């Protein structure tokens, strides 16, 4: 009898362990019908309008080098940080390299460093997507006599105090990619922004999908400001349209989960007329779900990975690819060098954020690059291409 009770206890423990499994919390309820849409708490009307407008503004800067261009910059003086003579140690606290976008970006950044002989040391600390590790990484960098500190924060709110501490150490701090809630960094580098990204995709679907059509929204994860902004913009546009958003699901950027979610929705709804995604790393998995179900692939929003672009061309899909260009990883190095030379930089360095449409997609397909290579890397003219990116 006791053996059996012990077994029941073990089974109970197993079950409890399964309840706290590595499956992340998907907080979203199934379906957010557009008729009673709630505005996302990340939605900011003024910023939204500004970003949508910036899409049409002509950038300042060298032609053909979007990573050096700026949109409506307000310059700040950096003369006090000038350190002539070269011999710079640049320090970089990286949130993670846990997705292909970041991996391509990081490779591009490393190659950019190689272009500048005045940088003699490039210290990189990888926080492995953990906030507490990144906080301690930044603290350790402030003690390393860096000429400049570059930070790509893991999350916005939690990393703000650490960034403020770094600023207080009198070393120029550059923040890029995701943002923080403080004005202390010398410059904050980012493309136009999440609202513009989300809007590109949502506007495309609004145009392509018939009124009353069912749209499935797929998101990677909650809580990251750039991603929340994308959904907030799309939500706003869908609310003002006649599209029926049948589901908003989190996929963790995982291909298997994306495929299951899409297949489930196809089964549940009978037909999906459009797919909006906040990032395209799993766009191919979503397309495959439709192919496996034997139905036509509906209009779909992807991103600039090679596997999606190739599939788009080969299968003649109706698609659009907003980009969050990986060439933005070149800009922090350029900005750091400008600051150390005492040149002016914009307080907020807004980079152009192109989208790839059916007219331009063929220019971006590169058959010999790996499937998860990002077309907007700005790396084709760099020495050694394509070696390090393969």
């Amino acid at each position, binding site marked *: 009898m006791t*053996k*059996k*009770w012990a*077994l*029941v206890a*073990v*089974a*109970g423990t*197993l*079950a*409890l*362990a*399964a*309840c706290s*499994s*590595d*499956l992340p*919390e*998907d907080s979203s*309820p*199934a*379906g957010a019908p557009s008729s009673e849409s709630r505005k996302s708490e990340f939605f900011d009307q003024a910023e939204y309008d500004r970003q949508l407008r910036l899409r049409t503004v002509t950038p300042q800067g060298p032609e053909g080098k979007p990573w050096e261009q700026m949109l409506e910059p307000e310059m700040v003086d950096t003369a006090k940080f000038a350190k002539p003579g070269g011999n710079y140690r640049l320090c970089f606290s990286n949130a*993670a*390299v*846990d*997705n*292909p976008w*970041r*991996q391509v970006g990081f490779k591009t950044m490393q190659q950019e460093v190689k272009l500048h002989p005045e940088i003699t040391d490039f210290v990189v600390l*990888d926080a*492995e*997507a953990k906030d507490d590790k990144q906080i301690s990484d930044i603290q350790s960098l402030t003690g390393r006599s860096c000429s400049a500190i570059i930070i790509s924060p893991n999350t916005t709110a939690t990393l703000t105090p650490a960034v403020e501490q770094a600023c207080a150490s009198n070393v120029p701090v550059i923040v890029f990619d995701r943002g923080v809630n403080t004005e202390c960094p010398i410059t904050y580098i980012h493309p136009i922004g999440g609202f513009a990204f989300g809007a590109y995709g949502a506007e495309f679907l609004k145009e392509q999908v018939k009124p009353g059509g069912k749209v499935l929204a797929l998101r990677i994860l909650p809580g990251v400001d750039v991603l929340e902004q994308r959904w907030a913009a799309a939500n706003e546009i869908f609310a003002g349209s006649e599209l029926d958003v049948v589901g908003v*699901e989190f996929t*963790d950027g*995982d*291909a*298997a*989960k994306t*495929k*299951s*979610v899409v*297949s*489930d929705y196809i*089964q*549940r709804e*009978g037909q999906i007329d459009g797919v909006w995604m906040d990032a395209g790393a799993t766009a*191919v*998995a979503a397309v*495959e779900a439709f192919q*496996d*179900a034997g139905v036509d692939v509906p209009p779909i929003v992807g991103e600039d990975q090679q*596997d999606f672009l190739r599939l788009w061309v080969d299968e003649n899909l109706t698609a659009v690819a907003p980009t969050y260009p990986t060439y933005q990883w070149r800009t922090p190095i350029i900005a750091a060098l400008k600051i150390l030379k005492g040149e002016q930089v914009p307080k907020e360095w807004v980079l152009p954020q192109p989208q790839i449409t059916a007219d331009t997609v063929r220019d971006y397909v590169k058959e010999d690059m*790996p*499937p*998860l290579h990002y077309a907007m890397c700005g790396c084709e003219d760099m020495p050694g291409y394509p070696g390090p990116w393969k």
Partner: protein
Amino acid sequence: MTWRPRLADGTAPVLVVLLLLLVGLAIAGPAYDEPAGYLALLKRAAPLMILAIGQYFVIVSGGFDLSVGALVTAGVVIAARLIDGDESATPWVILLVLGFGLLVGLVNGLVTTKLLVPSFIVTLGMLLVLDGATFLWTDGAPRGALSAGFRTFGRGALDVPGLGELPWSVLILAAILVAAALFMRSGTGRTLVAVGDNDAVVRLSGGRVDRLRLLAFVLSGLLAAVAAILLGGFAGVSAQVGNGLEFRAITAVVLGGVLLGGGRGSVVAAAAGALSLEALFTLLNLLGVSGALESAVQGVIIIAAVAYAAHGGGLRHRLRWRPKRTPAQPAPS
């Protein structure tokens, strides 16, 4: 003497549950009005069913194998990195992945039997080792790509004249299931069950307990590698494909009436348990129940099934049809 197919102990309840779920699906979903819908369900469930068969061998012999989920992830990641889109690499990478599964099973089995560490702990440790090694190798984002040839098994189908398109995963599943059922009816298979029931007796009567346990772990690792090939083919490269699969497999086996701790249960029931689990989740999805409840449902099933197995024995006996038996009379002297 006519051969009558006999269902092993405890198989009937899970088959009834499966039948109810399939009927439920037919009612709830338009896709299940034709065989193609059920075939798609079988295709999706095939990797889990294969994992459940592997897990059955280990559980019925008295152990646990918690490493299969991490093994599946590792298999997919390794395959993607080594193939890197090159079609010609497919055959040897498939062999390598199967060999890797065999090796992991071998290590699990050897540590359990030779070092006498409980299998729960050994395989838990192996899960952590594989998880960590995978993360170390990929930094969290797997590289490379699986070739179309590799993905045929998980995604593709074979044109069978007369039956139409049968998915490869279903064919592989059928072959494995038949082989497993035949194996369990053989002498080695029966001894495996006996090991789970009372290994001291088996040892005293000359059976090689350690070798049988080792065999069970090796089979579990090998079948996990097969599941990795099918899952990698189905969904592509992913670093989370194996998350939670070991608990799903154990739930499936337990749902199939196999006793945790070993000694009773049939492999067909374990596979039916896996199919029931997949059918249940599909049904819940069709009814609009949130996907987040899947873990909770699994937990309830495990607890209920084990509690039933521990206490429901009396109920089973009372409900079983038995001809009246008179007490034995002593032979007239």
